[in-house]
């Protein structure tokens, strides 16, 4: 190390700084270019419309959607005083209450029995996940028939057992339940698939060691399966709740919000207000309320979830 000739000159130093800055700038441009398509589309079809919705919610509009009169919070005030909207909120929460727990319980049951290593289990798994491939429109049409007052399968069964026929979609006390049943059926496929994935990722050694300790089937279910599955369950619950709030297609085909607004769920209400009544201001106010509810749900889920969920 005697002839150490490397000496840093001012010129070198300046060159380093310049190239480093240039590289950093190039990296930045490159990063932005890779993200640009997504950012641009998010801006146009997500961020801008969200702000625009907030803006619109403070105005009255004409039929083309142009703002006419600034009304401040009036749209919101009117909404909360309107019995139709109160009914819509109530129906929506009831609907969530009907669908979410049942979807989870049924799917979990299916996932547990389909997680056994038995011959032909693949067939059953395919059947259970099949409803994921069935669209809202098709599923609603299937159930439209099943609920049909005279030739529908359900009423035929009722008839055979000597029970009175039910106006599933025309009786206000049954319609929401009918839509909920359809929704649960549709949700089963996806929920089942995710839960089965969660079950399969649980370490087999846990069960083997429990077997060695002589634990019974239900003890293992309670002490290993459910706790280990909790992150997946947590995810599935969140997704199901959010989906329930966004229900539209079933209502549109089965009941069109009726009878007597019993199934006028929030998204359907927004749709009707905006695209049938052309009340874009009021519809926007509803959309904002929906947005806030979903946001709150997500936050509550995360706060609760963090504490209760057992992560591996």
């Amino acid at each position, binding site marked *: *190390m005697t*002839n*150490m*000739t*490397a*000496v*840093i000159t001012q010129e*070198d130093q300046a*060159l*380093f700084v310049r*190239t*480093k800055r240039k590289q950093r700038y190039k990296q930045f441009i490159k990063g932005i270019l890779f993200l640009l398509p997504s950012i641009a589309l998010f801006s146009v079809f997500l961020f801008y419309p969200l702000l625009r919705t907030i803006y619109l919610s403070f105005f009255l509009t004409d039929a083309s959607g142009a703002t006419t009169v600034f009304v401040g919070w009036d749209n919101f005030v009117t909404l909360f005083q309107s019995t139709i909207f109160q009914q819509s909120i109530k129906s929506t929460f009831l609907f969530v209450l009907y669908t979410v727990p049942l979807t989870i319980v049924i799917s979990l049951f299916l996932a547990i029995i389909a997680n056994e290593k038995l011959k032909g289990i693949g067939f059953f798994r395919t059947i259970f996940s099949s409803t994921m491939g069935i669209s809202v429109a098709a599923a609603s049409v299937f159930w439209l028939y099943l609920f049909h007052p005279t030739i529908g399968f359900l009423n035929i069964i009722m008839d055979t057992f000597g029970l009175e026929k039910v106006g599933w979609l025309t009786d206000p006390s049954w319609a929401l339940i009918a839509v909920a049943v359809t929704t649960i059926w549709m949700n089963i496929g996806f929920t089942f698939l995710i839960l089965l994935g969660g079950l399969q990722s649980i370490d087999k050694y846990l069960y083997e060691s429990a077997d060695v300790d002589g634990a019974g089937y239900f003890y293992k279910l309670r002490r290993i399966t459910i706790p280990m599955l909790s992150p997946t369950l947590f995810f599935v619950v969140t997704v199901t709740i959010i989906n329930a709030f966004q229900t539209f297609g079933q209502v549109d085909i089965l009941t069109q919000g009726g009878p007597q607004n019993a199934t006028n769920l929030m998204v359907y209400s927004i749709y009707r207000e905006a695209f049938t009544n052309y009340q874009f201001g009021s519809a926007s106010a509803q959309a904002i309320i929906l947005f806030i509810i979903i946001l709150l749900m997500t936050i509550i889920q995360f706060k609760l979830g963090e504490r209760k969920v057992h992560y591996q």
Partner: protein
Amino acid sequence: MSYIELKDITKSYHAGNNILEQINLTIEKGEFFVLVGPSGSGKSTLLRMIAGLEDITDGVLKMNEKVVNHLQPKDRNLSMVFQNYALYPHLSVEQNILFGLKAKKVSKAEQQKRLKETAEMMGLSELLDRKPRQLSGGQRQRVALARSVVSEAPLCLMDEPLSNLDAKLRAQMRVEIRRLQKQLGLTLIYVTHDQVEAMTMGDRIMVLNDGEIQQVGKPITLYNEPANLFVASFIGSPKMNMGKTEIKDVSNFLVNKTLSFSADVRMQKAFQVHKNIIAGIRPEHIQPAIHQEATHSLEVIHVEQLGNETSLALDVGGELWTAKWPGQWDITAGNQLEVYISTEHLSFFDAQTEALIRPASFSGHGEVQAI
């Protein structure tokens, strides 16, 4: 002719927290240079700075007399072999080898020529159509090497290239890499945490710890004259035995309060300068008292028969020291053992600064034998 020069090279990710501190180093053309140190010592970071994969925080890096601090990896004319080989899983062996040439737009004819030569040299001619996952660990390693060879870059960097292989294969690949480097006249910078690899492969070794150079030198120099306690304990396996040393009286000193040695004039002087001294001795220098008269008697704690040698764990003032005797010895644990330890084989270090005071001298017991 110096090929690579590092002048005051420093690396930090956060201000005031340097990963590497003022590294000064020159590497000659055609040299096999090994960077060795424990994990976290900064050796890989240094290598990646030379490659251009990490920014240089401060200092100058020169290659061929030219400052290259600001150059992109591709403009530094080097090749690199990674610990996990970095083979492209979706490409065949042939495509993997040619990957760099295609990126550099080398002509098709030249590509094929180089491929053929390299594949033959590395014994990969039969495997060119396979995908990486169809290869054994050793074969993958060879593909990674082939990729380096085919680039014909004069400088090759290797980052722990053998650590994913089993012991037998590793020994074999050590020889192969060494041969390849000589054959192609490559300048090779080789990073490892394994001191055996460092000792057996390097022309010169740099020992790095906590981002600072501990010692640079030939393998045998590092072994015989470790510059400090760290190098002394890091190089050599089993590691050097160490013990606290105190003066007993005018002409004697005690190691670990047990082993007594007579002190010559130089030692006496040393004790005047350095408050605390640590003595070190290599396991092979605790010898059987056969040709010489026994100097000490030690209790045997444990015996390991390795076939070609016998490894003994001995109690020295409550600490375990290791002795390594060539051949097979019938010794029982628990017995007292007569050994010969010469003062000449002791190295002395300052306990405070950890620096070497005096290396072991080998008069009359030639360690390096010239033939």
